[in-house]
């Protein structure tokens, strides 16, 4: 798997792309942390008042990251859909398949490289969000004592893993869109339109759908399923189910379709 991984990394590890995305992610994470801390004394998106006491709890340090988890997911979806889609439109996929005709292994290498990329981005976001939270908290009267405790560290770990898993889930939708549409523009736009407006609309009109629609489930999972109508374990299980199905469909198409681009 390493040659395929390293080959794909030539593309996604190029400085312009890598550091450009990294900078955007860091900015988003910082924004999330700062706005979360500044929202003390106001109401959040759902109208629940945000208090300094609530943010001072052990899981308060990750609130900023969770607040922007959907943006990290969107980034993961867009990047994977664009990278996979452009291999088709640039015609670079046929060169790669001539060099390495094991299609499934090639796809697996690409997915691993993309997953590593998403993991690096989410890790950077976590670090920036945590650092910014610590930096801003004193200014807004939020105590960071519980954050420093071992319970705080556990919450950081849990929050990180939840957001990472949710982002990888979005990335899986991106891979599927890239393989199905074979063009970055179509894959990104259809993938995003599905994950955001479409799923949100459906789940708003008929709320039980939120416990079955994949992107809604990933958002639920990113927030640790706190305050959702589905348990953490059930959300995780359903996400795995969807991701497995997406991987099977993407692999099947990638393996058997003609390469005519």
């Amino acid at each position, binding site marked *: 798997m390493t040659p*395929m991984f390293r080959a794909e990394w030539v593309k996604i590890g190029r400085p312009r792309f890598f550091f450009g995305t990294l900078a955007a992610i860091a900015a988003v994470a910082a924004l999330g942390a700062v706005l979360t801390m500044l929202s003390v004394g106001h109401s959040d998106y759902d109208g629940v008042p945000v208090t300094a006491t609530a943010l001072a709890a052990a899981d308060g340090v990750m609130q900023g990251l969770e607040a922007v988890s959907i943006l990290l997911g969107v980034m993961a979806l867009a990047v994977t859909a664009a990278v996979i889609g452009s291999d088709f439109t640039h015609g670079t996929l046929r060169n790669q398949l*001539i*060099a390495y005709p094991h299609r499934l292994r090639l796809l697996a290498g690409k997915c691993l490289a993309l997953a590593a990329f998403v993991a690096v981005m989410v890790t950077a976001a976590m670090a920036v969000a945590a650092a910014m939270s610590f930096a801003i908290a004193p200014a807004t009267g939020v105590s960071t004592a519980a954050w420093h405790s071992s319970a705080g560290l556990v919450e950081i770990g849990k929050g990180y893993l939840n957001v990472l898993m949710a982002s990888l889930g979005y990335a899986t939708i991106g891979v599927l869109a890239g393989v199905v549409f074979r063009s970055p523009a179509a894959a990104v736009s259809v993938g995003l339109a599905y994950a955001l407006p479409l799923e949100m609309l459906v789940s708003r009109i008929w709320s039980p759908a939120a416990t079955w629609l994949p992107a809604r489930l990933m958002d639920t999972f990113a927030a640790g399923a706190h305050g959702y109508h589905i348990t953490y374990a059930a959300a995780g299980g359903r996400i795995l189910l969807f991701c497995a199905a997406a991987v099977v469909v993407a692999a099947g198409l990638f393996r058997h379709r003609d390469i005519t681009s």
Partner: protein
Amino acid sequence: MTAETPARPPRVRTKSRRQARTDLPQPPADAAIWSQGLTRQYGTRRSVDRINLHVPTGALSGFVGPNGAGKTTTLRMLLGLIRPTGGHGFVLGHPVGSPAGYLSRVGAMIEGPTFHPGLTGRANLLLLARLRRLGPERVAETLDTVGLTSRADDRFSLYSLGMKQRLGIAAALLPGPELLILDEPTNGLDPAGIREIRSLLKDLAGARMTVFVSSHLLSEVEQICDHLVMIRTGRLLFQGHVTDLLAAEDPRLVLTPEHAGDTERLAALLRDHGLRVDPPEPSTESVSVHAPEAVAANLNKIAMKAGITLRALTAYRPTLEETFLVATGGVDGDLIPRSRSSPDASVGFHSPRVPAQDIPGRVS
């Protein structure tokens, strides 16, 4: 091995698989590319129609056909990118259905050079080299072979068309292939670029590499190829060594007497000497004889003895294209118009002739 060993069931399975394999036709040992009834259908149209290919190992073979003939489709099938809808194909002895068996020894560029525009030429090659488990030294070597070293670290999107083509060829050369497949490698190149590619291909074929190069112009590949495969609307028209084709060559000498009145007499005279003379066309004042250039001096002497002075004596050697059409009985008028047979349109086999752009208009 004793009778109780539990190895029996798998052995039976292996045997039945081998059985299935013997149903496949076997390619001859000397064939780098071989196919039988290779077909690709899109909807109701057959883009490649029951083609039997035989490209011998070590050949520098030209794959010629007009636009839309099915060249790229055939090459894609040979590279395992698309599946044939019928027939069998073999590359380096392996069926096209399992490209992993041979692609490590094949280099190819299909439908022009396609690379990641945001990566440098070198990074693009490095990506492919890593897939083939080759190191950056090999990338540097191939860049050097195609003369791109000085521009290797520029982004691909900034390359000129010629540089893009050369990068495409470099990618095909990466594995040091036994078989090199190039789809119209001279597309968009200027005459100097075309000459460069030609001499590169000649060098490569000299190094015992089999080269299969497609073109929509016979005139473009006939100068370097020793083997030809010609297709049209998905059908195979001709395949074989260029020498086979040249055996059917029909050179002509065109004699123009000083006085138009001597034309008839000259034609009769030459016929009396056992030469094949074309019936003179009413509008022309010259006589066309089927004979090689070597007898030109003799014909001149014959005319002089009979008191006929020649104003012009032109040797006319047909192009491979015309020879091919004669050989296959395919002179159906639409491929080569008669005007092509005028001596000024045709010079020797190895010299430049009709501008390349003229031919596509004729074909179709």
